[in-house]
C-alpha cells in the first residue's frame, strides 16, 4: 500500500508501522523507547506524528499504516506533545544528560528548553559491583529498552522493571546486581540505554570527558 509522509510517497507492506514508513521516506521522527531490534513498546510517546483526518496525534512506533494515509512528522500538536514529554523526562533527572546520549540528541533535535514543570527527582543510586557494567539508577527513564534487549535479543531475562508510577526503575536479578543474576554480560543493555543509566565503567572513566565531571555524586 502507499503512504505519504511529509509529502514523500512510499510503498509499504501490510503491518508496517508509521515510524517504519517515516524512516523509509527518510523523514525524522524522534524516539526514546524504540530499538529496531525489539518489538515496539509505546512508552515514551515522543514518536508522535499527525495524521490527516485524525484530531489527535498518534504514537507512530506502535500504529500500523493504512492505505493512502497522510502522515505529518512535523505536525504542531505532535511536536508540542513530544517536546513537553522530553521536558518532563529532563525534569526527573538529577543531572543533564551527557552529550553523547540519545536523550541529549533528541532534546537537541526538539530544541527542548528548561523544563516548565519542576519537582522531585530520582535519588542517586550507583551499582558498580559488576566488573564491566555500571548502573546509575537515577538516570533511568524507564524506557524498558534494556529489559527488552535482555529478553528479546539475548534471552537471558536478567533485568526487570521495578516499582510503579514515578518510582519505576530497572534492576537486575533479585535487585542483586548483574553478577548475581542470569546476566551473561553481553552488553546489549548498555548498547541500547539512551541515558547511560547502564553503561561501561571504562567509558565513565574516560579521561578528559568534561560532561562527566558535572555528573551526579
Amino acid at each position: 500500500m502507499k503512504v505519504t509522509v511529509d509529502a514523500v510517497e512510499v510503498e509499504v507492506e501490510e503491518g508496517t508501522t508509521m515510524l517504519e514508513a517515516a524512516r523509509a521516506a527518510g523523514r525524522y521522527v524522534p524516539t526514546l523507547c524504540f530499538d529496531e531490534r525489539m518489538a515496539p513498546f509505546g512508552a515514551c510517546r515522543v514518536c508522535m506524528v499527525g495524521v490527516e483526518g485524525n484530531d489527535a496525534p498518534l504514537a507512530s512506533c506502535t500504529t500500523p499504516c493504512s492505505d493512502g494515509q497522510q502522515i505529518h512528522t512535523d505536525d504542531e500538536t505532535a511536536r508540542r506533545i513530544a517536546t513537553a514529554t522530553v521536558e518532563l523526562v529532563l525534569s526527573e533527572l538529577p543531572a543533564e544528560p551527557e552529550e553523547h546520549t540519545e536523550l541529549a540528541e533528541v532534546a537537541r533535535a526538539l530544541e527542548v528548553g528548561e523544563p516548565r514543570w519542576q519537582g522531585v527527582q530520582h535519588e542517586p543510586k550507583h551499582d558498580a559491583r559488576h566488573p564491566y557494567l555500571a548502573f546509575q539508577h537515577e538516570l533511568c527513564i524507564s524506557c524498558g529498552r534494556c529489559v527488552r534487549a535482555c529478553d528479546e535479543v539475548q534471552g537471558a531475562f536478567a533485568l526487570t522493571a521495578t516499582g510503579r508510577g514515578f518510582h519505576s526503575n530497572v534492576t537486575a536479578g533479585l535487585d542483586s546486581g548483574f553478577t548475581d543474576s542470569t546476566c551473561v554480560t553481553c552488553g546489549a543493555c548498555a548498547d541500547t540505554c539512551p541515558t547511560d543509566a547502564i553503561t561501561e565503567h571504562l567509558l565513565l572513566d574516560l579521561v578528559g570527558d568534561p560532561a562527566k565531571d558535572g555528573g551526579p555524586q
Partner: protein
Amino acid sequence: MSTRFDQSTTTTCGYCGVGCRLEAHRVDGSVRSISPAMDGPANKGHTCVKGRFAHQFARSRDRLTAPLVRENDGFRLASWDEAIGRITEAFNKIKAEHGPDAIAGLASSRGTNEDCYAMQRLMRAAVGTHNIDNCSRVCHSPTSFAMRSSLGLSGATGSFDDFEAADVALLVGVNPTQGHPVVGARIKQAAINGLKLITADPRRIELSDYGELHLPMRPGTNAALLNGLAHVVIRDGMVDSAFVDARTEGFDATAELVEAYTPDAVEGITGIPAADIERAAHLYGEAENACISWGLGVTEHLYGSEVVQLICNLALMTGNIARPGAALLPLRGQNNVQGSSDHAALPDTWTDYRPVTDDAVTSSFEERWGVKLKRERGMTIPEMFDAAVEGSLKAMYIFGEDVAQTDPDTAHVEKALDSLDFLVCQDIFDTETSKHADVILPASSFLEKTGTFTNAERRLQMVTPAADPPGSAKTDLEIICMVSKALGHDMGYESSADVMDEVAEMTPRYAGISHDRIGRTGLQWPVAKDGTDTPILYTERFEREGGLARFAALPYKPPGDAADDEFPLILVTGRRLEHYNAGTMTRRTENLSLLPSDTLEVNPVDAERIGVKAGEEVTVRSRVGEIRLPADVTERIEPGHVFTAFHFPEVRTNLLVGQSADVNTSCPEYKVVAVSVESVRSPGERPQPAELVTA
C-alpha cells in the same frame, strides 16, 4: 558522531566462529571500548561478553613487545635481526643435515586467512616441506573430512539465518549459548517462538530447557543414535525418495545397515529411551524445514568423522538440505578455524582442499612461487609430536597456538617440545608452550592487523586494525614475510590485500574474493569471478564427481576409552561462556572476575557415592594424568559422566586426555576420557560446609 572517541573502526571479532562485526573505539592510541556493529550479518547489532568487553588483554603489561631469545635457562631481549638470524641459522642447519621435512609449522586458527596462507607458503616455499597444520586438527577436522566426502565441500551448507527459517533443529554435541553465544541467543529466541529444538548431549545444556526434547546419550555413542534416527525415518516412510533418487548415491547400503538399529537396540547402547528416539525421528522427519547443527561433541571422538557422515545421511534421506531453513551447520569454534583450513594451512591440501597429490594443482603453485614441491602429504600435529619424540622432527615454528595447554596428553606434548632442537613461538603472550621456545617473536592481536576471518557460515569478513601492536611487536603477516625472506623466499606482498589477491588467483572457487569486494557484509564462498557469492550450497549439484551426494553406511563402534573398575566415570570437556580456549586473552581481562576458576560438574548420585559436596576439592585421574579442582554438584550432567572446561593452566585439564583420536583425521577424543574422581579430604576429616558453586 560521538566525541568521546578518537576513532571508531569496524572489524570482526577474534574470539569464536560466529564472527560478530564490532566497532572498536580508540582513545589515545588504544582500544577502550567495543560495541557491536548494527549491520553485522551474523550478529545484527548484538555480541557477547568476550567480543564486547574482553579486549583489555591487548593492553596488558604481559604483552610480548620485543623478540626474546633463549639464553641459558631463561630468555633475553633481542633485536628482530638477531632473532630472525637465529631462526634462519637453525633452520638452514637442520635442512642441510636432516632435510626440510625435519621442520614443521603450525598455523593458528585464530590468525587471519592471509596469515595462514603466508605461513603455509613459508613452510612450503621457503622451508620446502608440507609439514604445516593448524589447530582445526583438534576440533573440526572430522567435519571437514566428512562433509567433503559426503557432499563435496568443507563448510556449513547455509547460514545462521537458517535457524530462524527452520521448523525443527537438531543440535548434537554442541552448546551454543556457551561457545557461540550470539548464535545461541538466536536459537533460543527461535525456540521460544516456535522452533522445535532437539538437543542431543550427555549434559542438559541451557537450550535443552527451551527445547522440545533432550536426548542424553552416553559419551561416544553418537553413531548409534544417528543410525537409530535413520532407522525410524526409513521405517516410518519419512524418506524423501524423489530427492534421494535424483541427487544421491549409496542409499541402499545405508538402509540395509540401519535395519539393525531399532529404537530398543539403540536404547541399549546410548541409554536414551526408545520412545524418545522415535519421537525425535518423527520431529525431524516430518518437519517442513529442518537443520542439524553440531560441534566438538561430535568431532572430538574416535569416530567423529564417521558421525558427521551419518549426520549428512539424515539430512540427505529427508531432503533437508540446500534451501532456507534446511541446512547442515557445524558450529566451528574459533574465529578462523574455517578459513585457516580453507587457506591451505594443512599438510595434505592446497587452498579449497585440493590435494597436494594433485599434480596439476601443485604445479600451479610451483609455477607461481618458482619452487619445486613434493606430491606427498606432510605431517599432522599428532604426527609432528610423535616424530619429535622419536627424533625425526627437529624444529617447529608455531604461531598463535598454546599446544602445551590445549592439545591432548599434555605430558606427551611437553616431551615432544623438549625433544626438538629448535622451537620458534610467535604469539602475543608467554604461554605454556613458549616456555620451551628458543626464539619468541612478539605478534599482533586481532585488533592490530589487517586481513580476513572466515566464520562458520563460510563468510569472509574484514579485520581492520584499531590500534598498533605494542612496542616493537609486529603483525603476524609481517613477521612471516620477514622470516620467509630471510630464508631466501621473498613473498613480495605489500599488504594483506595482496595475499588475498594471490589466493583468488590460485583458487577457482575463491576467484572473486578481494578485500574491496568483501566490504561490510562479507562474502560466502564459493565466490565467482564477478563477485557473486553463495549463501546456500548445493542448490544445483553436490560438489563431488558426478554431482551426487554420497550416503555412508557406517556402523557404531565403541569409543577409544571406556569406563572400567579403576576409572568408572567418563569425563567430557568443553567450553564456558566467559573464557576462550586457553584463556590466554580472557584471563587477562575482567572476565577473570566473572569466572575466576573452573569446577568439575558431578551428578548428585555420583557425588553421594564418592562422598563429595559442592565446592570441595577433588582429584581426577585418568590413564595418563591427574588434576585437582573443586566439584560442582548439578543435575545438568547425567550420572556416570563428569564435565569441565580447559581454560585454566592451573588446572591443566588436558593432562587427562590420552592419545585416542579420530580414525580419519586424528582429531583427539577429548570427549571420552575414563576417569576416577576422589575427594581430596583425607579419611576422618570433617567435610567443609557446602558452598554452592554454580557454573
